[in-house]
């Protein structure tokens, strides 16, 4: 079976001390030229902090979403009430997280492409962030299923005819 590397960052919110070093180094790494500037507002990790309620949740920037969730849930953990958004990775219209401050373009964590280890992890020496890599076997049937789910979604949105047309155009190009 084929294998792929799964990169995971384990976040231990209990160990987070709220220092925002992860934000600092992430923003510096992605500056052009590299390290030429820093600005946590550009970071691809954000520490959702509410010091007076003792809440600290480091969150990584995930996919962009054009629309915010219709409803919001609340979670109570250890007696503290968190908004669902506190754990969400989306760059979403409902909040300023994960957008370039000037252009508003969405930001996404790229696991510090080209570095041996994500830099936010390297600068979090209190171990609130731990990097793990593991090989996972890829089950082709699962992939098949995933593809089918994806295609079904596209079909319901655009209709089968249009999907077919796009597919044949794409295969002609190849």
């Amino acid at each position, binding site marked *: 079976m084929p294998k792929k590397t799964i990169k995971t960052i384990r976040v231990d919110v*209990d160990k987070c*001390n*709220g*220092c*925002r*070093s992860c934000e*600092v*180094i992430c923003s*510096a790494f992605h*500056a052009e*030229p*590299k*390290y*030429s*500037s*820093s*600005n*946590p*507002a*550009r970071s691809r990790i954000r520490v959702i*902090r*509410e*010091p*007076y*309620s*003792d809440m*600290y949740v480091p969150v990584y920037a995930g996919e962009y979403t054009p629309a915010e969730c219709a409803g919001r849930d609340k979670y109570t953990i250890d007696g503290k009430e968190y908004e669902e958004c506190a754990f969400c990775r989306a760059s979403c219209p409902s909040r300023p997280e994960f957008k370039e*401050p000037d252009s508003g373009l969405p930001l996404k964590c790229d696991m510090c492409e080209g570095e041996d280890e994500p830099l936010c992890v390297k*600068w*979090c*020496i*209190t171990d609130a962030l731990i990097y793990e890599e593991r090989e996972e076997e890829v089950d082709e049937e699962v992939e098949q299923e995933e593809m089918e789910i994806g295609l079904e979604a596209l079909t319901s949105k655009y209709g089968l005819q249009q999907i077919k047309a796009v597919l044949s155009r794409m295969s002609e190009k190849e």
Partner: protein
Amino acid sequence: MRYAETGFNLEIDLTRGNIERVATDPKDTELYLGGLGTNAKIMWDRVPPEVDAFSPENLLIFSAGLLCGTPAIGCNRTIVTTISPQTKLMHFSMMGGFWAPELKHAGFDKVILRGKSPDLVYIWINNDKVEIRDASHLKGKGSNETAQLIMKELNEPKAQVAAIGLAGENRVFFASIEQGRSSASRGGIGAVMGDKGVKAIVVRGTSDIHVAQPAEFLEQCNEVMEYIKFREDHPIPGVIPILSVLGSPQEMMIHDEKWHTENFSWGNSRTRRRDYWTDEIAAEWMETLDSARTRMVSCYNCPLKCGATLNMPGLPTYMMKCFTKLTYTMAAMSNLDFGLTIAQKATEYGVDGYSAPQVMAFALELLENGILTEADFEGMPEKSEDRFFWMLDRIVRREGIGDVLANGTHWAAKEIGHGAEEYAHNNIKKHEQLPLKLGMLNPIYFLMYCTGEKINITQIEGQFPQAPFPKREHREKFVKDWFQVPDDKFKQYFLDWEPRGENSMPYYPTVEMTCEIVDWMEKMHYIDDALGMCAGLSSFHLKAPYHIHNYPKFISFGVGIEMDEEKLTQAVKRYRTLVRANNIRRGMRRKDEKPPEDHWKKRIPELEKELLDTYYAFKGWNNEGIPTLESLKELGLGYVAEDFINRGILTDA
């Protein structure tokens, strides 16, 4: 293009409600760096000695350090500078936390307040949009309470708030400025903020801070991070717990308080309790701290987490760091549970955790000795703990005796008379000190106490061990990886320093060595105060990650000014002298430069005189502690020399 700094100050005239963004001169950065250095220059230029703390012309400067907002680890200090109502001198107090980097990202290096607002206001700096907003609904609110209310009303959970509590509003001479986890506490700067009618300064910034040589700068940062990790794995043996590990200091982490509780004095800095620390007390205090502390918290971009989030039963969550942990406990002769409970209130009120407990213990001593009477304390409960709560409430409201006590022990004693001055016995330059009463004169500490202008011992000591190590082999081991020394001779001074015999205190280190040691320690603090670096990673510690050899690189690569050790030393000397010049112009002289009379039981007047004479000369100051014309000119401070001549402080002969 400006690197590390923004190149702009925010000038706010509170009387007229005028707000201006003013470009600064890059030449001043070369001469005075930033933070404290440029603050001292502004104070010199704009606050003549006729202006007192509560004049509208007094400035209240909030300055980010030069390297705040860069990735330099632990660089997050706000240096607040003004004329102190208590000492009547130029005072500078600092706070860590998150405020200074946020200000930089908002596009400003400093906020300079002048005038007075007729009504209570707060200032909202949202990048380049700056507003003065009504704060009448925040009147009387606690400092943490205020911060939370403002973040909510602005809907800005990421804004950083520096606020005063009731003590600042009522101009208590030891009122602090609070910022959640951190505070600028000493010298009554919160009273000046209250006098100006400013409840809080709120800031949010989202713009970039650039560095001049990115790769080189980051390499320095990474080295510092590596060294922090090394120090974590290698605590310094043979010193007390808070000195063996980095942090500012790690009071909230450690449980073992034997050293503080048995060596520091209790009550009004009176009683040593030499066998205080028993197993039962250790267990009780551990239980108190462990159940109160829910998390260790850091300042911006620092892994050392030397603050704590505390939850005392039934009270709002608050944060604390450092020695306030013990000051209320010891002043009231109580336990840690009381200390952490009253500190919550004291934080909301915004008072200095060194001065406030001492003022209250002083008041009780006056009562015990009949100098104040029961009538002055009408309605005060019986129990020591309750009395402290009662007095604290009176002080921050300036009610009854509280109004007198709110001016601190020095001024209160003057007002009370009848011999009360004897009881205000633990001050330097009118400012309450740590409660330390020791045996034999220590020349190093003598000079630091006399000449420190932050008037707080922790803000001048640090680089050199506090005491000799018992055995030479320990000393040899210690100096082996002591690369932070500016010169190898310091290693030799330490190697030869014995606990007893010919090479021991008070005659060894010699007077000359003592001068060099004190000068080095002070220099490192002054560098921190200009760059915005936390002393807990630097000047307060033996073997710190930041030192005289890497600082010039941080400045060169960060700010883009050519810097080497010599040039840095000269710059520090320049603004350190300027701090002194501000105070000399305000009347500070040799007579003011002395430790509390009873600090040591055994004093040696001839040696003390020789120490001060030699140190003054070493610093380029005359016998009165006034910088000489020659040294002023050498530092490029000709304008100070001229002013001194015009005022008759020095003569042109």
